[in-house]
Structures are given as C-alpha cells and as structure tokens.
C-alpha cells in the first residue's frame, strides 16, 4: 500500500476539515474556557460528530459504524488538532472503541457511541508520568469485582458515561500478566471524580475507586488477560494522539508562515529574512517526517502487523518532538504578540504539551524502542 492518502481518504479529510473548522474553530475553545465550562467540551458538538458519522468511524458497519480504519480516524483527529477543538473523540471513538471492538462489551456500548449519547474516558495512568505499571486492585466480590485505587490524567473522567479502567487481578505492579480491563459505568457507587483544569483549558480528572462494585460482565476480554485489549487501546490512543498532534503542529506552522508573510519590520516582510526562513523550513521538514511516521503506524495498525507497536512508538515520539518544535518556533517567530492570550498561537503550545504527555512522551517511547531492540 502506498504511503499517502487514497482518494476516499482525501475526500474524508476535506469533509472533516470543513466541518471542524466551521463548527469548532479555536474560538469555540476560547468560549468554553472563558465561561469556565464545567464539562470541558460541547455535548451538542458531539451529537453533530455523530450526525457526520465520525463517532462510529472505527466501529464495524454491522454495529452501525462506518467500519473504517486508523488512517480515517487520524484524518478526523488531525482536523480536531488543527482547530484545537475540545472533543471526546480520541478517548471515545478511537481508544475505547479499539479496546471494546473484539469483546462482548460492544453490544452494550457501541450504539451509544455511534449515536453520540455516550462519552468514554480512559483510566490507565496512576502517576504523573505514563507507564504501564498498574497497581490498582480488582478483587473478586460476589458475582463481580471490587475496584480499589486511584487513576489520574483521565480526560473527561468527571463526565464520561463509560470509564475504561485497567486494574490488577493478579501479580504485582510491573507484571504484564494479571491485568484486567473493566468497563465501568459512570454512576457506579464509591467512584469519585476530581476534575482538574489543565494548561490547555481541558479537564482531566483524578479518579478514586473506593471499593467500586462491578458485575463480572464489566470485564473487557478475559480476566487476567487485560493486557491484550489494553495494548489495542494504547496503540489506537497513541496513534490517534499523534494524528491530533500533526494537526496542532501543522496548524501552528501554517499560522506562523502566514504571519511571516504579513508582518513587516525593517521595511520588509519578516518572512524574507533568511534566519526566519531557515527556522520555518526546518519546522516544515520535521513535520513532514512526523506525518510519514504517523501514516506508517496507522497503516501497520490497520493491517494488524507485528511491526505496528514499534511504528506507533516512533509516531508518538516523533510527533511530540516535531510538534513541540513547531509551537515553540511559532511563538518565537510571532514575537511579543505570540505571548499574548489574545493571539491563538499560545493555545497551540499548550495543547501540544498536553498531547505530548498523553499515553507517554517522547522519552517514554524512545525507551520502549530501545527495549524492543534489546539495548
């Protein structure tokens, strides 16, 4: 398969670009922030995502979705990134769907996701740095399980209808075996959410599970075998976050280049200065390479390839580095105005930092690569 978008994917990209730019441009984020919106995103917009069919993009046609792949999900995510649109799309339609896709849980949740009724949150991290070490415990209790522990950096965790939780049913924190993945409904007793406002104005919750009782049918996949759906979830989430970062970094680069063409100093457009041209060209090169890495990861994931895991780490690390560069250079090249709240470029910097951290930063993924290569 050639490494560029085919005609259908390009058409979808055009549709997504128009839709997101029209319904959720940066000023949508501004207005949610300025009104201290307690949800962090718009439920109405989520409904519109459903009307476009986007919510079920990875859900099989037989379940009412579009039955498309990670490339198509990425196309939508890139536009979400370009417009900094607050949306539960990544957590719900990409990460959660990837975990639920091959489980008995699909019948219970897919309809709501497709229709835009259901929002999902992903509760994996237990520390400020992402890692797959899971200490939270799930003990057998009656017909089901009793969950005890805490999770953090759970985007939309305070309002989600469904929370995917990785907990330990056997073994100790760093073991890969003995993890079980649960689908916990939001109204579960003894579950409390403490939403925190992040640097990019989004909301992510600290969740406390103080003996939360769930039925046995809340288990996604098999007991003790949660690392399988968890891997699918993380691969989809990381790749999706990478695609969203392409939009953030690309959007910042576009803004910056436009500014270089318009702003005059010393009697000339600043974009004619070689020092700035070289910085902008370097950003372009890094973003292009990141784009290729993301497409490679998406293709390998869609093909179910053994090489997907490495490609996903490469994509996540590369987009984190390239996008960080793009937003930093963007603020620098905008000069003082780039530091003002009124101007959008700073919003890109904040979003990039959050996405870089989500599901593991560049260092985490470089480390994964090194381990896989045996050094």
């Amino acid at each position, binding site marked *: 398969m050639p490494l560029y978008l085919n005609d259908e994917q390009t058409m979808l990209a055009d549709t997504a670009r128009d839709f997101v730019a029209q319904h959720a441009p940066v000023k949508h984020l501004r207005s949610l922030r300025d009104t201290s919106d307690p949800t962090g995103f718009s439920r109405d917009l989520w409904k519109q995502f459903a009307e476009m069919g986007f919510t079920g993009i990875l859900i099989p046609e037989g379940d009412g979705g579009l039955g498309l792949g990670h490339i198509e999900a990425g196309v939508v995510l890139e536009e979400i990134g370009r417009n900094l649109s607050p949306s539960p799309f990544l957590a719900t339609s990409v990460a959660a769907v990837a975990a639920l896709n091959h489980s008995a849980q699909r019948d219970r949740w897919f309809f709501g996701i497709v229709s835009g009724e259901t929002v999902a949150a992903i509760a994996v991290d237990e520390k400020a740095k992402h890692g797959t070490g899971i200490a939270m415990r799930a003990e057998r209790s009656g017909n089901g399980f009793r969950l005890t522990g805490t999770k953090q950096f759970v985007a939309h965790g305070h309002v989600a209808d469904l929370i995917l939780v990785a907990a330990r049913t056997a073994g100790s924190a760093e073991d890969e075996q003995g993890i079980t993945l649960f689908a916990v409904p939001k109204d579960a007793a003894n579950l409390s959410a403490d939403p925190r406002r992040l640097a990019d104005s989004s909301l992510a919750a600290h969740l406390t599970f103080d003996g939360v009782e769930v039925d046995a049918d809340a288990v996604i996949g098999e007991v003790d075998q949660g690392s399988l759906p968890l891997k699918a979830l993380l691969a989809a989430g990381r790749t999706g976050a990478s695609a969203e970062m392409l939009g953030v970094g690309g959007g910042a680069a576009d803004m910056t280049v436009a500014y270089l063409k318009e702003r005059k100093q010393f009697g000339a457009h600043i974009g004619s200065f070689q020092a700035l041209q*070289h910085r902008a060209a370097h950003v372009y090169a890094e973003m292009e390479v990141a784009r290729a890495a993301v497409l490679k990861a998406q293709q390998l994931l869609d093909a179910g390839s053994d090489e997907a895991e490495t490609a996903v780490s490469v994509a996540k690390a590369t987009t984190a580095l390239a996008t960080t560069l793009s937003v930093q250079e963007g603020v620098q090249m905008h000069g003082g105005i780039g530091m003002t709240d009124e101007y959008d470029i700073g919003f890109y910097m904040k979003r990039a930092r959050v996405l870089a951290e989500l599901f593991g930063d560049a260092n985490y993924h470089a480390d994964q690569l090194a381990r896989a290569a045996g050094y």
Partner: protein
Amino acid sequence: MSSLETFRAETRAWLKENVPASMREPVRSDTDINWGGRRADYAKNPDQKWYMDAMAERGWTVPDWPTEYGGGGLSPAETKILREEMRRIKARNPLNSFGISMLGPALLKYGTEAQKLKHLPKIARGEIRWCQGYSEPNAGSDLAGLATSAEDRGDHFLVNGQKVWTSYADKADWIFCLVRTDRTSKQGGISFLLFDMESEGVSTRPILLISGYSPFCETFFDNVKVPKENLVGELNKGWDVAKYLLGHEREMISGMGLQSSGGNPLVDGAIAMVGLDESGRLADPLLRAQIALFEVRAKAFSAMSERFIDELKAGKAHPAQPSMMKYYGTELNKTRHELMMAAGGSDALEWDSMQSNGGAAARAWLRTKGNSIEGGTSEIQLNIIAKRILELPSQ
C-alpha cells in the same frame, strides 16, 4: 496468487539462487562498492562482476528503466518488491553509478533517441562510469555562476575551464557537464554536454579530504573538442536538465540518512563497546538515551523515504521535496556517525590500526561532514523549501 505475489515468489527464488554470498556482506568501505566502468578492477572479488552481469542480464541494475535501454521494464510496484526482496537477503547493490542515479533519469527525460540508445545500455551494464561536472571554484553554492565555456566551432564545441569537487573524475570514463554557451544570461546561458574523459585536453587532480580519502577531483578542460551531437536538451537550456538531475542527486544523497541493509551498526557497535547492564540496557544511560532518540528519528525518516518514493512515483510529490529529503537525511547521517564515534571511544579514533578496521569509523565520520555541503548545502536546501514550498517572500 496475484501477479505481484507471483513476481515476488519468482524474484525471491532467483535472488536466492544468484546473489553470491560475498555480495550479501555489508559494504565495509568505499573500495567495496562496485562502480563499474572501463577501469573497474574485479581481480579482488570476481563475484562483483558476475553478480553485476547476472543482474544486468535481467535489466535489474536499472529495474524501472525501459527494456530497450537495458532496463528491466518493471512497474513501480514490481521495482519496490525487487528492492524489498534484495533487502531481505541483505543483497548489495549490484552496481553503483552516477549514470544510474543521475544522468540516466535526465537522459530518459531530455535525451534524443540516439543519445538514449548510445548511453543508457552501457550505464545499465556498468560499462561506462560517469562523473558530474557541475561545481566550479568560484561558483560554490551559486551553481549557475559557472564560467567553463563551450564555444560553437561549427561541427563541435570547444570547451575551456575548470570544475571542482568532481567525484571520482580520475576514475570515470565520461563526464556530464554544465558549460556556459551564452554570457548575457546567467541561468539561460548554460548548456548540458556529455564527453569522454579520454578526450584530448582533459586532466584531473585528486583532492585529499580530511578523511584521508580523495574521492573528489579538480578537473581541467583545455581546448576540449566535443561533438555537437553530445548536447543534451536545447542550447542554453541546460539549466532545466541540471535542475532535474539535481533533484535525483538529492534523492540519492538523502538515502544516506537511512540505515544500511541489515543489522544496525550504531546499536550493535554501542552494545559491543559499552555493554549491557544487568537489566539489559546499555550500560551508559546517557548514550542509550541519545541513541534511542536518534533511532526514533531515523525510523521516522525511513517512513518518510518510503512516502517520498511512493509520492514521487504517483506524481504527488512537491517538486522541491528532494531538498527536504536531502536536508533531513544528511543531517541525520551526521548525527549517526557522531554517535558511532561516541560509542567507539578511543578505539574508534585509531587511524590505521587493525582494531579500528583501518580507521573506518573515523573516516566515515569525517566523510559525512561533507554530506550537508555537497549536492547543495543544507542552507541552500532550506532556502529552496522556504521559497518554493512555504512560498515565503524574497527580499
């Protein structure tokens, strides 16, 4: 089975049978590479010649060229499969040549039928080795500032002037050369000529580099007579040919950022020199971190190369994208060799010892410093990206 699957199976079988064991070993130095040509010496390794001939017989030294010019006539998909299958068994390139990577594509686009038939099959069979006469002492990165002149003398051009940084001019049989045929227009007064390096009036002098090698030469032309039929494209329109060819050169040089076939010399070398600790990690944590972050970028660039080739074949690549590939690939390659030196420590510094394989690591490290200068400096590539892709204004 689809026809491509059949092609893959047949290709795999043929390569298994026909690629000699010594041609599956990693290339260790410049002298290990087969460049072909009238003066090629195969006494050291007759396998080189055998392998090149066997591949040329099938047109596989230039798999995507038309068969009438010595190519394999393969489709882009088949060419990709052939390369994948060669990589799979770590097969070397049967033939390395500026004829294949640079002149050939330019002749296919701009050459007359007679020129194609005369030169392309000899390139494909490795009979004629070409060099490139572009750079001049006073032009540097301002390539179009060249002064070497070609006067119209009725049935021939009379060429006078000097070129510099002519790679392997002392070993090449023919040269493709940019000459000035009109002094009144800078870019519009350049023509593209081909001629035999054995012509009277051609002389070369190797330039010793910091790596101790001398792949480059100064090349002098003193009243060299070049038949008119050797003009490629139109008179005074050689700049178009030159630019087209430069795109291919940049594409070729950008390949340096990619890992060589098989193994990973950086990681393997670092493990061998520094060792692993009890948890299986490189014993030097900072070197490990640097290598890991480098490998992330190298793998991403590998995906970029795949994307670039795919887009190029589909006509979707921006015409200035080779500049990005050249810039990124060569900067990456410099970083790789810097890390290889860091991993090797003082052993890698030994210039002529057995321990250092004749200073191979140090010489390769020094050589890579030229990657971001030759074929258009990194700064020139960034200028091109800024102006042609980002469309930033000129001063």
